[in-house]
């Protein structure tokens, strides 16, 4: 089946090459068919160089793009790594190349073939990159990344590193001694690009090789291990429980399970030998898996737990700043701060508005003081100079203490006192005017001059009219007269004198009366005359 297929394959390759770039954008069955045929052809052509590959031919019919790609990958991995190793070897021994080119060594030829195949392979890879989904590209990229980043200490040998550095420096500064440069220094890639462009005419593959430079290129690590790691990684990313049924997966798994420990066996021969022992049955595989798991768990149990799993851990028992890295869970006793959103603010504002409209404010109101006692009579401090001397003040105090003088009516204010006094006086006067019923003056302890009124008159319910006679004392009545005599005691001369004085007084009186009568008469006459004249 190879030859017709081979012819078809070449045709397919040609077709792929001639296809326009926009054609690749939309999926077309024609191109897919062509791609499959081409890949099949390439696969079979490369088959002789991959002794390890489990496939004899590429299984295309009924297989997914992913599956086809997987098959290709399994074939290519060991091949590519082997080629790289050879390249490195060539770098170190450039004479061999010349000899290879010039001579007829089989190895060189093979190598040459390999080189040529490498080119094809690269193209194939590119083609498949176009054909297959992005998964394939991602895969390759993943591999490259992992391959470049995975540093294993056992591979990093200082001596080899130094040798390599020296070679690189010689290459850079020593000019173009060698023609072929394989996956050159990653760091000096930019500087070497020019040289490569000039020299490496057929080294399009090598350029691509530089871009896909990997760890093994520098340090020539274990291909087998690398491949195994890559397979492992691929598995992890692809959720490979689905592929357990597939032979390729099973065989890889076998390799891994048998080399479970970190100290993997080196060399391709060891892995090949294991494969040849035979595949295990499903049950045995399951058991192996379980055993592995159990071993792991037991190992974990024997080790001391991490500090997060221990009970109470103080700061001294855990590494520094380790609590920062762990998400600690503890109870917060504080309420979390409220998140202020627009709704919250609007609700608050609405509340405020409603309160204002209702006039319902939560003002603090002063407690009403209990009306327990009446207002105390506060004694006003007199700020004027006291008119009384100190002696007088003490005198008064003494008098009050001993009770000689009753305490005066206590008034708080001088003005009040004055006002009350005035009012009493007015009241007294009004009472006196209004009726004859005299109300006596109020008893005021004053050293005031009392009116010369007999006590009887004060208390008596009698008219106000008072005669002078009552006021005067008996002696005052006869103020002017000397000694008085009774009628019997009088001498004649005195009798005569009395009679004469009597007569005189009577005469006076009579005369006064007559004059009055005359005047009255005259007045009456004139009036009558007046009246008579009026009448007449």
């Amino acid at each position, binding site marked *: 089946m190879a030859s017709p297929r081979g012819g078809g394959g070449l045709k397919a390759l040609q077709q792929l090459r001639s296809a326009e770039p926009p054609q690749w954008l939309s999926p077309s069955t024609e191109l897919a068919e062509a791609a499959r045929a081409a890949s099949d052809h390439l696969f079979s052509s490369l088959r002789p160089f991959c002794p390890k590959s489990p496939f004899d031919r590429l299984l295309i019919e009924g297989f997914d793009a992913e599956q086809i790609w997987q098959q290709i990958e399994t074939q290519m991995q060991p091949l590519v790594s082997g080629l790289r190793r050879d390249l490195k070897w060539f770098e170190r021994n450039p004479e061999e190349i010349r000899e290879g080119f010039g001579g007829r060594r089989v190895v060189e030829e093979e190598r040459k073939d390999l080189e040529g195949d490498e080119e094809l392979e690269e193209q194939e890879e590119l083609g498949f990159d176009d054909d297959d989904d992005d998964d394939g590209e991602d895969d390759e990229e993943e591999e490259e990344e992992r391959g470049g980043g995975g540093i294993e200490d056992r591979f990093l040998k200082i001596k080899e590193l130094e040798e390599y550095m020296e070679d690189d420096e010689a290459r850079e500064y020593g000019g173009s001694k060698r023609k072929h440069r394989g996956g050159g220094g990653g760091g000096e890639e930019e500087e070497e690009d020019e040289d490569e462009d000039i020299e490496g005419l057929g080294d399009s593959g090598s350029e691509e090789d530089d871009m896909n430079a990997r760890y093994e290129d520098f340090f020539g690590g274990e291909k087998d291990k690398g491949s195994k790691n890559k397979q492992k990684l691929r598995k992890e990313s692809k959720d490979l429980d689905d592929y357990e049924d597939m032979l390729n997966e099973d065989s890889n798994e076998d390799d891994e399970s048998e080399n479970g420990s970190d100290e993997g066996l080196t060399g391709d021969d060891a892995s090949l030998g294991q494969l040849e022992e035979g595949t295990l049955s499903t049950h045995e595989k399951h058991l192996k898996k379980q055993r592995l798991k159990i071993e792991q768990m037991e190992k974990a149990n024997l080790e001391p737990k991490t500090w997060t799993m221990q009970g109470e851990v103080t700061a001294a028992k855990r590494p520094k700043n380790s609590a920062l890295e762990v998400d600690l869970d503890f109870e917060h006793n504080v309420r979390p701060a409220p998140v202020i959103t627009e709704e919250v603010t609007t609700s608050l504002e609405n509340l405020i508005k409603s309160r204002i409209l209702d006039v319902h404010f939560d003002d603090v109101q002063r407690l009403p003081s209990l009306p327990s006692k009446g207002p105390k009579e506060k004694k006003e*401090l007199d700020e004027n*100079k006291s008119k009384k001397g*100190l002696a007088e003040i003490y005198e008064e105090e003494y008098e009050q203490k001993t009770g000689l003088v009753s305490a005066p009516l206590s008034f708080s204010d001088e003005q009040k006192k004055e006002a009350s006094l005035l009012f009493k006086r007015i009241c007294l006067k009004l009472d006196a005017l209004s009726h004859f019923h005299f109300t006596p003056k109020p008893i005021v302890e004053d050293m005031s001059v009392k009116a010369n009124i007999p006590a009887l008159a004060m208390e008596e319910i009698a008219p106000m009219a008072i005669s002078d006679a009552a006021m005067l004392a008996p002696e005052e009545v006869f103020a002017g007269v000397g000694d008085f005599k009774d009628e019997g005691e009088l001498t004649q001369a005195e009798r005569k004198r009395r009679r004469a004085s009597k007569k005189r007084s009577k005469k006076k009186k009579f005369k006064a009366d007559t004059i009055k009568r005359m005047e009255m008469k005259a007045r009456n006459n004139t009036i009558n005359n007046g009246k008579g004249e009026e009448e007449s």
Partner: protein
Amino acid sequence: MESNGGVSSMVLETVPAAEQKRKFEPLTAHEMSGGNVQYRKVLVPPHRYTPLKKAWMEIYTPIYDQMKIDIRMNLKGRRVELKTRSDTPEVGNLQKCADFVQAFMLGFDAIDAIALLRMDELYVESFEVEDVKRLRGEHLSRAIGRLSGKGGKTKFAIENATKTRIVIADRKIHILGSFVNIKVARDSLCSLILGSPAGKVYSKLRAVTSRLAERF
């Protein structure tokens, strides 16, 4: 007297004791001091010279007439001299008069100082502003101003409330009154010196005086 003496000499044991005792009158001040005349002299400060001249009769009359103490003014020596007489009734009169004159010299009025003559329990206490708090310069002036108040109203208020008389002579303060009243007045003045406002002092005064008044 002879018959008595004869009787007593005749019957010595049987005479009753009441007849034997003689009644003596109390000693006058003059006799108590052994017939010596006692003197007191009071210096007159220059600023009280003129007031003394004006109030001389008010001072002289009670001392000479009622206390029966001789008093004279030594013009040359600027002194008031007091002397007991033979008929001075009390021993303490001289000292009282001296206190009275001294109080006048401190700055009290004659009518206020007369209380010293009339009452026993009145005293004069003097102290300085510096005794209360060390004040200098403006602070001192302000303190003195605070003590008197505007137009002397704070001083009068304290005087009236505590029945004392206060004289503020630059830095010296003299208080005349009874012991308890002096204490109250002194406390009020000290609080004023220390800086409390007049209103606070008034309220305290009211409380204290009302309490004192209630007691009696």
